[in-house]
């Protein structure tokens, strides 16, 4: 699934969170978006998923204009995201959280008669918990999870939709070294066809996963290229890498 934004601008009053941003992400690409705090990374995600309408500009998914599409319609096209601030279903168990995502993919969330599919949903919940190494947390209410566990369930919730385009907003923030490694392994194991866009401050993670990197600063796309090109880019070094060489 490919994605492009067509001179997207988002204004909050006087603040331009995004200014004429053009990004083009090819199908199956692993892209990182980096930039200092307040650069507009989350806003870019919000525009792509439909959570925020751009002040001007267009969003294209698989070359079709989806700017007017609702959030849920885009999700049904194969878009999934994680949120910078975890937004699990706090009073539901981990298993129930995952089941909701799985049912959405199977389009059985409106059934009154559960039928055989519910058993399939239960089985898939088990296998996904297994893959995420969280089987012991199955019946834990989401609000009782530790920070790292919550981040991992957050990712699993998005993965349970079998997305074709996955947006990850700082998924590793606050994770321990070991948790981080496990998450990187999990993300690298995604099918090649899945397009991934990752917002991440940890450049080791960025360079471990991304094939291309886009750099935002004050809502402006200041660079776009391979990790090597980005490392060598003067402007990027000035605003983001703090002149590190």
């Amino acid at each position, binding site marked *: 699934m490919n994605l492009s934004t067509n001179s997207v601008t988002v204004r909050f009053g006087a603040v331009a969170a995004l200014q004429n941003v053009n990004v083009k992400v090819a199908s199956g690409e692993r892209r990182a978006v980096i930039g200092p705090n307040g650069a507009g990374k989350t806003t870019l995600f919000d525009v792509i998923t439909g959570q925020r309408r751009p002040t001007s500009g267009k969003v294209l998914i698989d070359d079709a204009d989806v700017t007017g599409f609702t959030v849920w319609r885009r999700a049904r096209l194969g878009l999934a995201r994680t949120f910078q601030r975890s937004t699990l279903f706090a009073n539901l168990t981990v298993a129930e959280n995952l089941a909701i995502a799985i049912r959405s993919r199977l389009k059985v*969330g409106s059934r009154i008669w559960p039928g055989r599919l519910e058993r399939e949903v239960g089985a898939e919940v088990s296998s996904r918990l297994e893959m995420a190494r969280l089987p012991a947390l199955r019946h834990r209410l989401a609000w009782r999870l530790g920070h790292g566990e919550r981040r991992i369930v957050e990712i699993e919730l998005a993965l349970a939709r079998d997305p074709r385009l996955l947006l990850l907003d700082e998924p590793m923030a606050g994770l321990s070294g070991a948790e981080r490694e496990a998450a990187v392994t999990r993300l690298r194991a995604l099918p090649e066809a899945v397009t991934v866009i990752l917002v991440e401050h940890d450049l080791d993670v960025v360079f471990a996963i991304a094939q291309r990197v886009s750099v935002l600063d004050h809502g402006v796309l200041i660079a776009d290229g391979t990790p090597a090109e980005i490392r060598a880019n003067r402007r990027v070094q000035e605003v983001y890498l703090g002149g590190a060489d």
Partner: protein
Amino acid sequence: MSRLRQLRPRRWLGQAAFLVFLLSVPAWAPNRFWINVASQALIFAIFAMSLDLLIGYAGMPSFGHAAFYAAGAYGGALWALHLSSALLPLLAVGLMAGASLALVGALALRARGIYFLMLTLAFAQVVWSVLSNNQLANVLGGDIGLISVPRPVLPFAADVSLFRPANFYFLTLTVAIIVYLALAAVVASPFGHTLEGIRENEGRMESLGYPTFRYRLAAFIIAGALAGLAGMLGGSFNFSATPATAFWTTSGLAMIAVIMGGSRSLVGPAAGAIVVVLLQLGLSSLPARGLAERWQLLLGVVFIAFVLFLPGGLYGLLRRRAA
């Protein structure tokens, strides 16, 4: 899920005991008055359970649920007065009347939380003012309402008179049990879990691909239909449909029943409804002068005590005991 499974044997036992208790009410009730009180309590329990679907499961704090109760009461009364008093069509009329009005009230679904509460309240007050409008008196009976509403007639057993309190009680009990079982199935179904997801985090549900508005609309219509069913029974029970049924105090009593009983449990609000009906009766017949007229104030005090000392309501208390 496992929490429920652990509780299940005890729950079944409790439910069976409660069922026996309900079935035996006419046998030990001292007189017809108390059988009628029990019918009233069950009708109110149906109403409160339907509200629990919105408040407890879907997270939609409706303060206008009385409008749908009134729709059922008026729909059933008009039908019985002008067309027929056969039971099954009347039950369908109650459901349809509640559901249809819910379709109109759905404009409140644009709002969330306290704004949803205010909009549903305003909507119900509009319904109340239409019902009590004397210019429409030739259709709706104005501020007197519709009177001399006949009781329904049972299919295949027309000689079993529903004018007899015990017979009417068994009718309301049957409907209450069916409504309970239906709602229990709904909240345990994928659809019910989807509603819970919307209650917890609507935005997240949308980004998972759920068209949440449609689900909220469906919940609103189901709850409205069941409230209409309760209203239809209430109209039959009272032989009348009055504007007061749509007034905000009726919505308020149902909300109190849900919260006192413990939302998101169905049984809690049903028990809360029974408690509210009994309290209403007890407080309004207090011997002390002046107090009886202020039964609503006293009920408010009891309600506040519940909220302060029993968060989670009666059901929460039972669950903590069981755990």
